[in-house]
């Protein structure tokens, strides 16, 4: 019971609960919703759940990077454009190499995409950490600049390419699980190890909570901030690779468009405060999965286009409200009031729940 209560209080629990509720609603609409089977024609495992996992891969990537930026009390509005950069470099490279089955071509494309994203992310970091510009302004400018660069790379056109191995990143499966998702989770685990096995995570949190105290304790904020923005850009570019690998085409204007908002939402749903400080990698990942589920649910339920943003907004608002301490304690009081009308003990208990 106690352990359950503890789980209830973790930030990602709400996200998981919301996913379960959405899946349940879908299952009510169609009892076969959760079924996973083998597609007779293609021989691949198929099912709605697998679709959700597959399209969650890019969202998980950008949310992961955004988590650390937000933990340092910053924000990165350029992740959506970084996805376009990743996609544009990869597609342009693959289309000029034009070897439809070459793994080397794929690796070259990935390497170049991540390299450019790393450089641009480092520029973000330097502007924030060394020059001292506001993260909001810096990354807003980068958001526009990076999309411009993506347009220059592709000559303003949609660029498509053929490369089997690259296409498999999104559409392949490993033991029935979408390759993109497996890779994304692998990267999440790697980054989590990097953060928690070294002191990087602690230092990021420390800087986010109290930059002055951290400086006096001998933490150098600059390299850490630069690293955080560079990491966010590289992860966003990986997200862009997953996205373009789906369709093997990049539209420099629309790829990753507005995805920074999804990333910020996923991070906040996952329990990392926009005011910086403690971060939750698990929470952000759960938040990203929730957004993927929500995107799919909207289509599955046939919510009209015009009402889609409102539907998403309502679900997220309910979730965020449920996470707020004040609403939680109000609900608690409400449920107790019929028997014990707001006694001091009830008050105390809810106070404890907050602590």
């Amino acid at each position: 019971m106690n352990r359950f209560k503890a789980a209830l209080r973790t930030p990602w629990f709400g996200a998981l609960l919301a996913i379960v509720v959405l899946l349940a609603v879908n299952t009510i609409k169609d009892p076969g919703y959760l079924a996973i089977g083998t597609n007779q024609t293609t021989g691949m495992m198929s099912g709605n759940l697998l679709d959700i996992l597959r399209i969650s891969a890019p969202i998980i990537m950008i949310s992961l990077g955004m988590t650390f930026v937000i933990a340092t009390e910053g924000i990165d509005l350029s992740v959506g454009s970084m996805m376009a950069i990743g996609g544009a470099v990869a597609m342009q490279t693959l289309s000029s190499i034009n070897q439809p089955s070459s793994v080397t071509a794929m690796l070259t494309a990935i390497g170049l995409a991540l390299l450019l994203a790393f450089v641009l992310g480092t520029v973000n970091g330097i502007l924030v950490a060394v020059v001292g510009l506001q993260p909001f302004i810096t990354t807003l400018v980068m958001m526009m600049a990076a999309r411009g660069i993506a347009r220059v790379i592709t000559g303003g056109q949609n660029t498509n390419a053929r490369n089997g191995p690259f296409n498999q990143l999104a559409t392949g499966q490993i033991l029935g699980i979408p390759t993109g998702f497996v890779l994304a989770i692998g990267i999440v685990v790697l980054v989590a190890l990097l953060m928690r096995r070294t002191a990087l995570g602690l230092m990021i949190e420390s800087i986010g909570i109290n930059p002055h105290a951290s400086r006096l304790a001998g933490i150098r904020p600059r390299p850490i901030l630069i690293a955080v923005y560079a990491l966010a850009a590289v992860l966003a570019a990986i997200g862009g690779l997953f996205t373009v690998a789906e369709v093997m085409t990049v539209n420099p204007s629309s790829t990753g468009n507005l995805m920074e908002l999804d990333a910020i939402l996923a991070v906040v749903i996952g329990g990392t405060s926009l005011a910086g400080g403690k971060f939750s990698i698990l929470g952000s990942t759960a938040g990203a999965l929730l957004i993927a589920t929500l995107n799919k649910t909207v289509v599955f339920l046939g919510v009209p286009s015009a009402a889609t943003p409102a539907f998403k907004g309502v679900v997220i608002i309910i979730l965020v409200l449920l996470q707020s301490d004040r609403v939680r304690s109000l609900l608690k009081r409400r449920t107790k009031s019929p028997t014990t009308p707001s006694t001091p003990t009830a008050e105390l208990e809810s106070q404890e729940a907050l602590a």
Partner: protein
Amino acid sequence: MTKSSPSVAAGSHPIVEVKDVSITFPGVKALDRVSFRLLPGEVHALMGENGAGKSTLIKALTGVYEIDSGSILIDGRERHLTGTASAQEAGISTVYQEINLCPNLSVGENVMLGHEVRGWAGIDWRRTHAEARTVLARMELGHLDPRAPLSSLSIAMQQLVAISRAMVTDSKVLILDEPTSSLDANEVEVLFGVVRRLRDQGVAILFISHFLDQVYAIADRITVLRNGQLVGEFLVQDLDRTQLISKMIGKDFESLKALGSTRQKDMRDRSTTPLLAAAGLGRKGAIDPTDVEVHAGEVVGFAGLLGSGRTELARLLAGADKADSGAITVKGEKAGIGSPVAGLAHGIAYSTENRRDDGIVADLSVRENIMLALQARRGWMRRVPAKEVDKLVQTYMQRFGVRPNDPDRPIGLLSGGNQQKVLLGRWLATGPDLLLLDEPTRGIDVGAKADIQETVAELAEGGMGVVFISSELEEVVRLSERIVILKDHRKIGEVVNGPEVSAQSVVSIIAAESEELAEQAAQELASSDSTTTDTTTTDTTNADSASDGRDS
């Protein structure tokens, strides 16, 4: 000292009368039933340490804060001030330390801002500038060209322009909040000339300054605040500096005298290489170039009022701020200490006076707070092994008796005293040679205070050099072997502790009117075996910080 006769006519009618005013902020009573009066034609100094309530009182008078209870009478009428505009309308003008003029506008535009002369087609600039010229002439600033850009003037002249601007509205009350903090001695004289002229014209002037000498040079009367309460109102000639300081810090004169140190005469041999030596270390606006030495195993106290430069000096020694002059040698070798990282690398740890903003990392656990500085020393790649962390945490939590005994609790949920103990643990975990403790006992309970004092003595015994800074002079006197005395952003002396040194004798050095007297007092005190060093410069004031930043 050039003091003109106080022109306060006995029984003259106060222009401003504050009666029993209280202002409460969440958790703090910033002003507690304070009464205060300001007479026309006087310069009235408002004195008190940072946090005493000076700024709050000014903000109440200028309508920035609304008062919770009590009343403010201006010219005999009760006024409800709702903002600077309504205060200005009531005849109260304020010139702040940070000059809030527009440097890109002309002198005349600045003076007349908001009061431009309007012609048939908008502002008549010719007449506006002419009007500005007359206003400036009244302040005997007729030589200034109203059309020159403000930025072409010196800071002092800009300050005078700011005052001129305040006088455009024919103010009856002029509040000067730290007006001299960025002026040199000559500029201060020019400013004072203007102030005296205004006083003679019948303007009531409220003067706030950290500089005692200036207060005694210009003020007719003094009101002292402490901890949000009124201590009293005095004529300048009735209150000497020692008395003023004791009123500001809240120890009465006799008890200060009685608190003699029982400490044995210090016998340390200081011919050896000091652990740390600073020569001519200074930073513009914070602390004048200063020499200071700390030996291994020695506790050196920094004594001085808040804003005297004691914190600023400690921050330079630790690398928290960058010095712009002078050099530091550590164990005889030149050390470039321009950042806390460099300070820690040279074995210097600095525990800040501002525990909440610069010390604790509130949401991190006690464990993480203790290991933070050590981890930073090791770098992010090499995480301090869990075993080592556990050992450190256990050692320091036990040694200082941190309550509750839960290393995973966020430090923000601990009491102030326990937070301080954890922070002490953080710095000791780095194994420093020199520990700078800035107000380590402020705002914590008696028990924790004694624990920390004991620890300081132990650490010195164990060979560590310690710099101890505290507003409580008794504490400094009790713990220190030597006391460096600071005032007005400079070191004014240094005494070696001994039975004849007391909190009171330190206060009398700080209170001494001029440098020579301070030196004399220190020498008398230290007699044969104590040394007094003094810093080089003779011009008194050249600083622009010492703001009332924390004085809410």
